[in-house]
């Protein structure tokens, strides 16, 4: 019987406090009935008792069957939970890029590694907080027994569903948020003279040349238009002819501008040291400028590729 008591105590440990006494009492009665039936065939040994208990199942499993655990988030709400989490993390990423860029541009030590490190650590911290907050919110609804998705799933209409199309027609949220983060980053870099203090500005070693700065500022409306285009994509998240045409126009503008910038000179100027001096003791300004030009040409290939790709897609849609 000591073995039986140990088993019941183990089951009770896995149960909520208010159910332990009652379930323990009943479980003991059931096990004793089984043992009584077995003992009619002869005296029971400890191994026979152990076999009966083994057949009952592990105490955790038995406790779980008596009092099934309630999921933290109702299963119907999991897709909405994932979607909400993704949207919020996307926004946080964008904000972190903005904040990180601000700090990076304002610092005297313009290390790219530090910028990425700051971005990653800041985003992870915010993401943990967001995950906890969203999880707790969904849990509070689930705990009341009112799944959030229930009513939404009843309001849909078949006519409002998007038409069947190829896989590329679906716009993923991650693409939109990455684009938005990139545009914000560019605007911050271009307009740093507006939001940075004069001490921070004076502390920078290398800056854009006056010409390059002017061209970049004239390009800002295109960047703002790109952001508007991304927000438009968020509305339906399906590539239509109009969206593809708008995207092609924007990418063509980017590609052309980047190539133009790559071949205009000078791009950079040394604020503190003389033009021939070495930057951080390793590179000259001329070398930096050359690398920047190559980078701009390579970068221009990405929007250039997207123009061609979207053109082909637009043709497929237009002549379907």
């Amino acid at each position, binding site marked *: 019987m000591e073995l039986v008591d140990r088993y019941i105590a183990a089951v009770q440990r896995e149960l909520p406090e208010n159910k332990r006494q009652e379930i323990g009492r009943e479980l003991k009665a059931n096990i004793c009935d089984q043992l009584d039936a077995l003992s009619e065939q002869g005296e029971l040994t400890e191994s026979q008792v152990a076999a009966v208990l083994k*057949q009952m199942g592990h105490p955790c499993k038995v406790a779980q*069957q*008596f009092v099934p655990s309630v999921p933290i988030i109702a299963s119907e709400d999991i897709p909405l939970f994932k979607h909400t989490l993704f949207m919020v993390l996307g926004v946080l990423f964008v904000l972190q890029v903005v904040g990180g860029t601000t700090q990076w541009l304002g610092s005297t030590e313009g290390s790219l590694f530090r910028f990425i490190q700051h971005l990653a650590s800041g985003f992870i911290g915010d993401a943990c907080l967001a995950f906890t907050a969203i999880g707790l919110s969904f849990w509070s609804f689930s705990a009341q027994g009112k799944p959030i998705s229930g009513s939404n799933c009843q309001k849909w209409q078949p006519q409002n569903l998007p038409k069947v199309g190829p896989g590329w027609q679906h716009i993923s949220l991650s693409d939109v948020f990455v684009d938005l983060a990139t545009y914000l980053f560019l605007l911050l870099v271009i307009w740093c003279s507006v939001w940075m203090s004069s001490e921070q500005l004076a502390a920078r070693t290398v800056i854009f040349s006056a010409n390059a700065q002017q061209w970049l500022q004239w390009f800002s409306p295109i960047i703002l238009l790109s952001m508007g285009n991304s927000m438009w994509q968020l509305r339906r998240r399906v590539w239509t002819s109009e969206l593809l045409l708008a995207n092609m126009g924007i990418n063509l503008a980017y590609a052309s501008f980047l190539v133009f910038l790559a071949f205009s000179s000078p791009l950079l100027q040394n604020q503190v040291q003389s033009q021939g001096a070495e930057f951080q003791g390793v590179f000259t300004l001329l070398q930096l400028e050359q690398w920047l030009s190559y980078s701009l040409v390579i970068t221009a290939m990405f929007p250039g590729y997207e123009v061609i790709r979207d053109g082909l897609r637009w043709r497929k849609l237009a002549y379907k």
Partner: protein
Amino acid sequence: MTSSQLVKMRLELRRGVLVLAVLGLLKQPHYGYSLRKQLQDGGIDIDEGTLYPLVRRLADQGLLDSEWRQAEGRERRYYQLSSLGAELLSQLTDEWQQLNGALAFLLEQSADTNGSDMNSLDESAEEI
């Protein structure tokens, strides 16, 4: 199909009828072990880890009444159908009979179709 897949599917198939079987037997009062014995004698083998929690859940849902009784030097918890449970049993019994009839018909049709396919194959073989 692997044996574990078969075991899972059998469990799925039995899960639905178990509630009906338990409610049906509890028109008369039973305690846990005696209920299991009755089910086994009737051809439904169920392990204790499934039956006892199931009976408790049905009681928590108000479908069963229960009381502790002293007998043969020990206490046991006896369960019996409540009025709500009796109503549900009647509805589930009708549902079961409908399903049973429909399934018997479908399986018979399926057997007839297989049989006629086999006959036509045999005839084709004979012609050849």
